[in-house]
């Protein structure tokens, strides 16, 4: 395996959790809801996924538990912002704090427990080809993340349900007057976002670094949030952005290991700087690239 292949593989592993969580949040925001709780949902997903995988010995059950935990936590958020029309920013921040605390509680008994990483796929004849490890030897999560990305792209741009979701996000009043079920659509979107965050968490604790430790999400939920803005709410840009952000953090590590002088602190800040730049470009540019019209505003049906 050549050095470039090794580099690219680490870029992919670093980008995958950002891609999964970011794609979930993109769908949520497209429906007009801002969920700042990704970090918390990821942490709970990581803790529950690891705990169940250890207790049952089954990776599949661990992943399902992580997804379920993400959904459950996002349901709490949905109850607050849809059921009670609470402030989305405050509810989302509360969700992060709740999630980080809850994950510590769930994972407390599993600190210091080690587990084998979920193995990468191996297809005889393909994985062993030159460059084959890159295309055919990745972890199942990597293929799942790409499937989610392209599935979301198709759903939002090609399907009728996707059109409904976008119209709800652009103007919930108009959508409501057309007879679209605004709250139901948003509930589905929020639960999908929760499932993705939970899955991203499972990736962290079962593949990336197969152990549980409080705080192991280390701000990736926030980077996923920044990513959605950076991508200006477009799935393909988000896919690109995830690999760009993942690449920036990983490439500087490789550059250091190869003794290439590189300002490592600068590249660590890259995702945030890039997001700010993207915001500047967007606000200076055309209107088409701006946020969904109803983003962050609660909807109360007048009846």
């Amino acid at each position, binding site marked *: 395996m050549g*050095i470039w292949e*090794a*580099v690219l593989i*680490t870029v992919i*592993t*670093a980008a995958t*959790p950002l891609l999964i969580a970011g794609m979930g949040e993109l769908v949520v925001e497209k429906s007009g809801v801002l969920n700042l709780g990704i970090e918390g949902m990821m942490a709970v997903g990581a803790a529950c996924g690891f705990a169940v995988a250890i207790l049952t010995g089954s990776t599949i059950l661990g992943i399902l538990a992580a997804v379920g935990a993400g959904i459950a936590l996002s349901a709490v958020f949905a109850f607050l912002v849809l059921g009670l029309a609470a402030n989305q920013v405050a509810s989302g921040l509360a969700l992060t704090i709740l999630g980080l605390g809850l994950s*510590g509680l769930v*994972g*407390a008994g599993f*600190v*210091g*427990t*080690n587990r084998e*990483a979920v193995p990468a796929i191996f297809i005889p004849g393909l994985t062993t080809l030159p460059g084959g490890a890159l295309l055919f030897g990745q972890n199942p999560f990597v293929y799942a993340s790409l499937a989610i990305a392209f599935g979301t792209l198709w759903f939002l741009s090609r399907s009728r349900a996707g059109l409904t979701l976008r119209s709800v996000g652009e103007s919930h009043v108009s959508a409501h007057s057309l007879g679209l079920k605004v709250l139901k659509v948003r509930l589905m979107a929020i639960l999908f976002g929760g499932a993705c965050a939970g899955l991203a968490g499972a990736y*962290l604790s079962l593949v*990336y*670094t*197969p*152990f*549980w*430790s*409080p*705080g*192991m999400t*280390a*701000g*990736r939920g926030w980077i996923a949030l920044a990513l959605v803005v950076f991508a200006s709410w477009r799935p393909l840009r988000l896919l690109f952005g995830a690999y760009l952000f993942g690449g920036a*953090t*990983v490439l500087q*590590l*490789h550059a*250091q*290991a*190869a*003794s290439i*002088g590189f*300002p*490592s*602190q600068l590249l*660590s800040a890259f995702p945030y700087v890039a997001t700010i730049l993207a915001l500047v470009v967007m606000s200076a540019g055309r209107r088409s690239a701006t946020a969904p019209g109803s983003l962050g505003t609660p909807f109360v049906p007048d009846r």
Partner: protein
Amino acid sequence: MRQFIKAAAVAALAAGLAGPASAQEKLKIGFIYVGPVGDFGWSYQHNQGRLAIEKAIPGKVETTYLENVPEADSERSIEQLARTGHKLIFTTSFGYMEPTLKVAKKYPNVMFEHATGYKRDKNMATYSAKFHEGRYVIGQIAGKMTKSNTLGYVASFPIPEVVAGINAFYLGALSVNPNVKVKVVWANTWFDPGKEADAAKALLAQGADIISQHTDSPAPQQQAEAAGKMGFGQASDMIKFAPKAQLTAIIDDWSAYYIERVKLMLDGKWASKDTWGGFAEDMVHMAPYTNMPDDVKKMAEATQAAIKAGTLNPFKCPVLDQEGKEVPCKGNGALSDEQVVGMNFYVKGIDDKLPK
């Protein structure tokens, strides 16, 4: 009879008052951790020290901790502890130095203990451990065990403690293997398992076959294990995460120091001072030497014993800096404690530019 009842009532009243009063006299001790207690590294070991206090001095103390406190935003956390009646506060990361100093000036009746820093005050003591003694030992082991002559080092932030650790590691390796090289990767974090793992992967991809680390999670050791290479645990015994890869681990043991300081506080004899202990003071331990041949193990034990006895100093003069200039020797045949505590240069032969 009436007198008796009166006396009994007074006694009961006194007892009733005494109950809560003595409970209030419990010494409240606060801890600030930079990572989560469950990091299984740095903060975990400080928390072990806290638990040791509770066990050693039962009934007289009450301990509280705040975990995951960001260094840049720690002042309000430290002040929160000071305001809520904590009389002795341990702040356990280098970056807490200025905030601790600030809060210490504001609360002259609260005593502070700051780990790994160099600024003190009347009510602010400092303490640290000579981790570099352990790093010299693991450097020697690495120098013997490497096949590629390339050692990987996952570093956190370019502060003196970490720089001195890299230097000691390299000097240890060089003392047994003149061809050895060390590659340093700065992760710019104390605790981010994913990034630490990526840093280790980058080093392994560049040919390193030994992974040493000065970040707090076991992730780099897991990577070494997965790649079939070797490594050294950090701050606590990480053998569970790398049963075939861990050669040994440098273990911080704060228990004895914490108990001693709390006892002094209880006796009213606490005074601000600087404590810097290593093997000899039992503040630094080595995990069992595993996964290595007997001769390497013997060498490591001999080195450890020599450092403990004071016959070997990792920074014995002459020490050359990266340009090959001799560093002034201010200690007794070795660099002085101040020079090591404030170390801001690489020794000759380290193939990396120190980030400023």
